[in-house]
């Protein structure tokens, strides 16, 4: 309440006005005091003049009464006597001051004079002529003497006052000058006080306006305003400071989030590139696993040697073996014509026939027109056949059969690898058909069934039935690959 704008303005204006009013009142008071001092100085002389007048006035009624015994004169005499008695102070102390002693003597003489008056009246009433005549003589002398003494003391007082007159005038002038200066400085003090008060209120507003200008220009880094002013202005200043700081804080937060998002996007992009690079590297890795150039060249050398030695069957075997490796090793393309895949598979079948002439029957059924009209991912049939050779006939003592069949159903080209082996357990099939993300570790076996399935999932992510497996215990296993000929395989990064 005390710091409120209204109260402060009220108090400041009151203080300024009170100062001025006080100084003016004081000057008025001092003027009155000065007048009183001067008046006091002459009051005593006025008193003595009046006393002297009264003493002279009483002479006539005294003589009149003593000579005529007039009641009128007596009445006047008594009035005069009472008037004079009232002018005598009740207390007339003895002091060491000569002037006051002179006053004391006058008052005592006056009192005795009035006693003489009363005595003479009494003598007159008693017709003691000699007594009142003598008293009258005494009164006359005393009256004259009193007049002289009053003259003397009055003159003494005037001389005394004249002695200090010059000092009084000097001090009075000095007093007036000091009063004038006091009023001037009181006015200046009040003026500066009010200006200070106005400034105290308006300065924060001015600074707020400046701050608003800075904020509108986008500068939120300016310092807070700290002003001990009136409560209303302080509330505005505080609110303004809070607003500025909140805006600055929000802007900083937005920028920080933007920065985080940018970082996140960069990180995401980097992760994506890394993922793509990882895929590419994995593919290369898979293909690089089949890159024994030395073996391939050596086999070619063996073919030429078998031809030179006329070992035709060996030469034929070696040639198929060379063809098999050529398709599996030299090919760097991810998608190849079906013919290319089938030729490799035929060489592989020839090798299997040489290796397992009595225990394994391999059959291939591919329509000739499809060989050049269809393309498939490289190395998807041979691993399936190899998987059957390795796993389908474990513990089987009869002749196994593996057949590869390619046919077309509408826009789909179907590739089937079927064996009549021991089959695959349901859990195994589910595990094999599970999609792995690239950042997951899995037990991929190179060139195995799982590898082929996962590569097909990679090339055809939008086709969930790209691979199906039908199998049962002792019922053999058929793996069917269904490729949409119109669907572009996902091989570009």
């Amino acid at each position, binding site marked *: 309440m005390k710091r409120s704008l209204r109260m402060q303005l009220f108090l400041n204006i009151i203080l300024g006005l009170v100062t001025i009013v006080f100084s003016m009142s004081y000057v008025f008071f001092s003027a009155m005091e000065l007048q009183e001092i001067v008046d006091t100085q002459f009051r005593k002389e006025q008193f003595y003049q009046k006393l002297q007048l009264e003493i002279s006035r009483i002479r006539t009624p005294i003589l009149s009464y003593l000579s005529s015994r007039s009641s009128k004169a007596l009445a006047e005499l008594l009035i005069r006597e009472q008037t004079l008695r009232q002018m005598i102070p009740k207390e007339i102390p*003895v002091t*060491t001051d000569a002037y006051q002693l002179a006053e004391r*003597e006058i008052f005592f003489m006056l009192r005795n*004079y009035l006693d003489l008056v009363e005595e003479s009246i009494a003598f007159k009433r008693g017709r003691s002529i000699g007594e009142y005549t003598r008293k009258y003589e005494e009164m006359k*002398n005393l009256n004259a003497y009193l007049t002289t003494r009053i003259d003397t003391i009055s003159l003494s007082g005037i001389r005394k006052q004249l002695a200090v007159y010059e000092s009084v005038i000097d001090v009075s002038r000095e007093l007036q000058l000091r009063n004038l*200066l*006091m009023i001037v400085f009181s006015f200046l003090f009040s003026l*500066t*006080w009010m200006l200070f008060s106005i400034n105290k209120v308006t300065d924060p507003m001015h600074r707020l306006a400046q701050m608003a200008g800075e904020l509108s220009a986008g500068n939120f880094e300016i310092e807070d305003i700290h002003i001990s002013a009136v409560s209303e202005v302080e509330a505005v200043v505080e609110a303004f400071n809070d607003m500025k700081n909140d805006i600055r804080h929000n802007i900083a937060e937005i920028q920080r989030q933007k920065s985080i998002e940018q970082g996140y996007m960069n990180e995401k992009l980097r992760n994506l590139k890394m993922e793509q690079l990882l895929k590419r590297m994995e593919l290369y890795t898979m293909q690089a696993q089949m890159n024994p150039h030395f073996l391939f060249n050596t086999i070619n050398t063996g073919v030429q040697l078998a031809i030179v030695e006329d070992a035709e069957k060996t030469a034929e075997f070696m040639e198929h073996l060379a063809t098999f490796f050529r398709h599996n090793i030299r090919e760097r393309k991810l998608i190849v014509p079906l013919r290319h895949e089938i030729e490799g598979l035929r060489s592989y079948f020839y090798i299997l026939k040489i290796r397992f002439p009595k225990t394994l029957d391999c059959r291939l059924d591919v329509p000739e027109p499809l060989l050049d009209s269809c393309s498939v991912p490289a190395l998807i049939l041979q691993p399936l056949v190899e998987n059957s050779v390795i796993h389908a006939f474990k513990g089987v003592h009869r002749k196994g059969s593996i057949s590869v069949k390619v046919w077309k159903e509408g826009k789909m080209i179907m590739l089937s690898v079927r064996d009549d082996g021991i089959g695959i357990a349901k859990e195994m099939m589910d595990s094999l058909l599970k999609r792995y993300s690239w950042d997951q570790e899995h037990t991929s076996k190179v060139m195995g069934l799982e590898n082929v399935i996962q590569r097909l999932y990679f090339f055809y992510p939008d086709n969930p039935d790209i691979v199906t497996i039908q199998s049962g215990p002792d019922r053999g296993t058929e793996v069917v690959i269904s490729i949409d000929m119109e669907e572009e395989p996902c091989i570009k990064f």
Partner: protein
Amino acid sequence: MNRFARLPMALFGFLFLTFFVLSLHTIVDLARITSDESAGESAQYHFALFLPEESYSFFHQVAQGARTAATEYNCALSFHPVGYGSPDLAMAHFSGIDGAVIYPSIEEQQVRTILEQLSANNISVVLVEHTISDDAPWPFVGTNNFDIGRKIGELIALQSSDPLQIAVVYSEKSPGIYAEKDLVGLGITSALGKRLESPPIAKMTNLNPLDAEALTYRMLRSEPGITTIVFTDARDTLAATQVLIDMNLVGTVQLIGFGAEETILDYVEKGILAGTVVTNPRSIGYHAIEVLFELKRNGHSAGYVDTGVTIVTQSEVSAFRKVEEGK
């Protein structure tokens, strides 16, 4: 901004308060100047001193002694002239005083009347340097004039050889001695006895301070047999000594002075005056007030206080000065 606004505000505020305080101080000064500065302290009794108006050092010293005593006894003291034409003493019994010290330089009968009026009004009285005949018990403070004469005689005996012809110059200026000039003459006679060729001649000066000068001229010219001239007033002493110097009669005629003025002491020191009679008026004034105070307080006091007389010769001047300075 605020800092710059505060500075003139503080300055003007300070100047305002300064001139306010100065103004108050001036009013107090003014009141003090115009007030009765000599307002005295309250006193026990009011005594009045009635002395002749002549400005002789004798009376000044009496007044000085009275002031000292009044201060010591906390009494107020008013001073009044006494003499022909002044009604103060006649009106004293109306004035409410508690006591009066009177140097009665007026007619004895008139003095007696006044003293009776004072007594009737229960106003105590002390007489100084005067003896009203002893049928009324007025306390007296002063010197014994016979003693004065005797001491003068003793001094003359030391200074002059026989035969001696002495002239004593009384004065209206020293009415106390003049009133008892016979006692003074008796004192001189008793001290010198048969060495006197003839009884001391009494001369008289009036109130004119230069009257003694003319008188001395006349005596030295017309009465060459006078070997010693005795003065009973300080102003007469000063005037006569200058005549003696002018007439180149220093050493031929012995002068006995009166009073302790510095010029007189110088004359004594130089041998121009054979000596000077000092009656100690300060002590007279002091004891007069003392007696009055005792009268008012106790109802009685000593009826007679002899303040003594001192003769200062050439060899005693230094010692006398030291004693006076010490007082």
